[in-house]
């Protein structure tokens, strides 16, 4: 009887966070389960039930995430532990999973008949706290069909290795750059005038931290689920290798962008396109108009999903601008669209596209990291040299460049504030290695996923053979060594680590 066992494990895991949060999750599950049934059975009121369900889920998120209700409730029940998270664990994730379920019911999918199966689907412990957002006809189906016989040592080993990789990314890689990013942003928030080099070090560090932290956590979830015999959807696919912003969104937080695409973007685009076709002056641009409107609403909601502050909303809108810019650029190039993996592009063109995309996304992440617009502007100003472009003293002397002349708006400075506790050399090595990993190495999906078809060049095939991944991951002495080193992250996990996406 696997489903009850897994449900019990998930309940136990979730209760560990707080009984109050578990009660909230339970109520959400019960409400959504019954509304799902209603949507399926009803003929006249399908739409109304769907709206009610969406309203309730969004209401849950708004209420428990964006107001002080939780701290009030905590005081009421006598929990004064200041280390408790202030919002129910995973509420954004499990609410979205369930909204997806309601949408699917509306579109005629078969409902989940048993409450116990539905409860396990929503509260499944690897994915409930930080995603990926899952679908009922995929993960739900797998959970229903799971049997004890399906446990085998291969899945357990591969799952554990993926879990180790994820842990390693999180507690070793992400944490190593977190310190650097924190030091720079602390200075920015304190209105210290940092130069362009310091600003970029901070911005790039944060971009790397965010990626390793979140993708590491997704790997942990997927690896854990593999050990149980469940395949969760991949959430990341080397996002910083994206050649344009649209490609980026196919590689970053894939489960969320798929969700937004399926349930927000396409319906809005579709609705507008259809309606616009019957309005004379809009019909010619109905497709483009639908796309623009859909993108705008989607990215606005995406920003809002992360937080109800101005910075998150602006971050969403920042991406809207980037996406529009990309589309108009393509249109002006008069070619019917640029493929992201086009073999016709030269290596230089691909790498400069990647660089441009990485830089744009890094600028956007500044809004993610700062808590108010002022700090973000300070950071951007520093990044474009508003407080001075960094230049080494030796270089300046050689070329007769005047430094520290604040007479000009954009001047040169060699001033390096003592905001870093590590040496500049250590920071440079750290960033260089991580950028190497992000731009050149295969990602965890490419290494561990046996069913994923990853195209390989001949050179890469040789490396793949050495690392025994040419036909999918296989254990070998090389991997024994690598994984043994990575067990360092198993123990380090014990310390309280910064979990960026834990508060969503």
């Amino acid at each position, binding site marked *: 009887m696997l489903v009850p066992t897994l449900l019990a494990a998930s309940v136990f895991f979730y209760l560990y966070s707080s009984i109050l949060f578990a009660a909230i999750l339970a109520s959400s599950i019960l409400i959504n389960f019954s509304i799902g049934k209603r949507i399926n059975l009803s003929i006249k009121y399908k739409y109304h039930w769907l709206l009610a369900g969406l309203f309730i889920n969004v209401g849950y998120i708004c209420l428990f995430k964006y107001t002080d209700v939780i701290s009030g409730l905590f005081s009421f029940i006598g929990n004064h532990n200041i280390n408790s998270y202030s919002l129910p664990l995973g509420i954004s994730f499990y609410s979205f999973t369930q909204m997806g379920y309601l949408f*699917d019911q509306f*579109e*005629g*999918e078969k409902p989940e008949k048993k409450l116990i199966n539905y409860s396990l689907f929503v509260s499944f412990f690897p994915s409930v706290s930080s995603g990926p957002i899952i679908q009922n006809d995929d993960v739900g189906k797998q959970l229903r069909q799971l049997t004890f016989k399906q446990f085998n040592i291969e899945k357990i080993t591969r799952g554990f290795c993926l879990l180790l990789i994820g842990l390693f990314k999180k507690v070793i890689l992400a944490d190593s750059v977190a310190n650097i990013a924190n030091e720079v942003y602390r200075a920015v928030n304190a209105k210290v005038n940092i130069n362009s080099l310091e600003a970029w070090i901070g911005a790039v560090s944060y971009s790397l931290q965010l990626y390793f932290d979140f993708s590491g956590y997704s790997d942990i979830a997927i690896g854990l689920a593999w050990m149980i015999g469940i395949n969760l959807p991949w959430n990341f696919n080397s996002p910083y290798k994206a050649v344009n912003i*649209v490609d980026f969104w196919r590689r970053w937080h894939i489960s969320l962008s798929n969700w937004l*695409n*399926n349930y927000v*973007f*396409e*319906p809005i*685009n*579709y609705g507008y*396109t*259809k309606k616009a*076709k019957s309005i004379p002056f809009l019909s010619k641009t*109905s*497709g*483009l108009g*639908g*796309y623009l409107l*859909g993108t705008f609403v989607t990215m606005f909601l995406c920003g809002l999903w992360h937080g109800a502050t101005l910075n998150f909303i602006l971050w969403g809108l920042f991406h809207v601008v980037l996406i529009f810019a990309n*589309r108009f650029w393509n249109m002006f190039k008069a*070619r*019917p*669209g640029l*493929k992201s993996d086009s073999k016709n592009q030269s290596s230089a063109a691909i790498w400069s596209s990647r660089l441009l995309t990485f830089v744009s996304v890094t600028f956007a992440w500044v809004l993610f990291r700062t808590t108010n617009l002022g700090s973000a502007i300070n950071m951007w100003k520093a990044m474009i040299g508003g407080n001075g472009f960094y230049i080494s003293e030796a270089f300046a002397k050689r070329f007769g460049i005047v430094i520290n002349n604040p007479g000009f708006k954009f001047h040169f400075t060699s001033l390096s504030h003592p905001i870093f506790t590590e040496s500049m050399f250590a920071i440079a090595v750290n960033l260089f290695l991580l950028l190497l990993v992000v731009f050149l190495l295969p990602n965890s999906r490419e290494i561990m996923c046996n069913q994923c078809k990853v195209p390989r060049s001949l050179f890469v095939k040789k490396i793949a053979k050495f690392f025994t991944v040419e036909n999918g991951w296989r254990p070998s002495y090389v991997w024994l060594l690598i994984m043994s080193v990575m067990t360092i992250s198993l123990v380090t996990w014990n310390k309280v680590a910064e979990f960026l996406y834990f508060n969503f």
Partner: protein
Amino acid sequence: MISERLKSIIIKELGLEDFVIEQDAKANQIPGWDSLNHISIIVAIEESYGIRLPGREVRKLENIAQLQELINEKLSAKNDI
């Protein structure tokens, strides 16, 4: 078997003139078929055949041939009612 009608709808929506859609063609192999134009292609197909293609089902399609099968399915369902 991808019908000529479907091929012409696609070619018209994307503004392609000389492109030949093979039997095993996939959407991402057709120039210009991406998220920008996907919905307008679907809407054009729906309007031409008078059917409804739910997003959920379109997502599961792997190539144009399967799209044709889906269209046929919806057509026969419509004619049965």
